[in-house]
């Protein structure tokens, strides 16, 4: 399960179970929608040429949800978008699994593209979620050290 917050045209969820892209597309779709932009993050098998075995995500759940909510509010203020959804995983993820899905619907595509890009870029800077990369020979909290 995890924390979930729905405010009118916004759904934000932290989840320990597999994320589903189609569910996210369906949620943002409405009869007024002319286009949907979806960002799907996936777990890559290497970092700087070094093989990654799996990732582990940890969140400060309450604050992560409130920071994601702030980002969606900023996106609504900046672009004429209709619905925004952010689903983010916590826990252990294998190669190819999905840590994050962002879906944005709008009447016209420019707003959806721009808002989706803004949301993922800002999420990576401000939302208190951490990722640990597990290698064959050790593990590293991503971005922790200069």
């Amino acid at each position, binding site marked *: 399960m995890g924390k979930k917050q729905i405010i009118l045209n916004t759904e934000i969820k932290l989840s320990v179970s597999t994320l589903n892209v189609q569910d996210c597309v369906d949620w943002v779709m409405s009869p007024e929608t002319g286009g949907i932009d979806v960002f799907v993050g996936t777990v890559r098998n290497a970092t700087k040429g070094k093989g990654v075995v799996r990732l582990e995500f940890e969140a400060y759940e309450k604050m992560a949800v409130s920071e994601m909510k702030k980002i969606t509010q900023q996106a609504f203020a900046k672009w004429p978008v209709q619905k925004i959804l952010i689903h983010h995983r916590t826990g252990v993820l294998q190669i190819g699994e999905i840590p994050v899905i962002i879906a944005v619907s709008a009447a016209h595509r420019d707003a959806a593209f721009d808002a989706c890009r803004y949301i993922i870029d800002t999420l990576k800077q401000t939302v208190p979620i*951490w990722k640990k990369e597990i290698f064959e020979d050790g593990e590293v909290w991503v971005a922790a050290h200069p």
Partner: protein
Amino acid sequence: MKINILAFGIAKDIFGSPEVTIDLANDATVSNLKYLLEHQYPRLNHLATYMVAVNNEYALDGDNIHERDEIAIIPPVSGG
């Protein structure tokens, strides 16, 4: 006053625990807290940066800390 500090990511590894208790003066600021923590846990100084959250909001160095505030150490985030 005794303040519980939540730790996440690498901060949890540095503290050796998801939560530590620290004794602070009643009029303490975020800056005072960071000074004490960095003295007690010098590995904090090796991080690229870290923030303090007070009641689920990023706090500034000059912000005051009150008893029963929810305090968390936020090392560099890496979600997405």
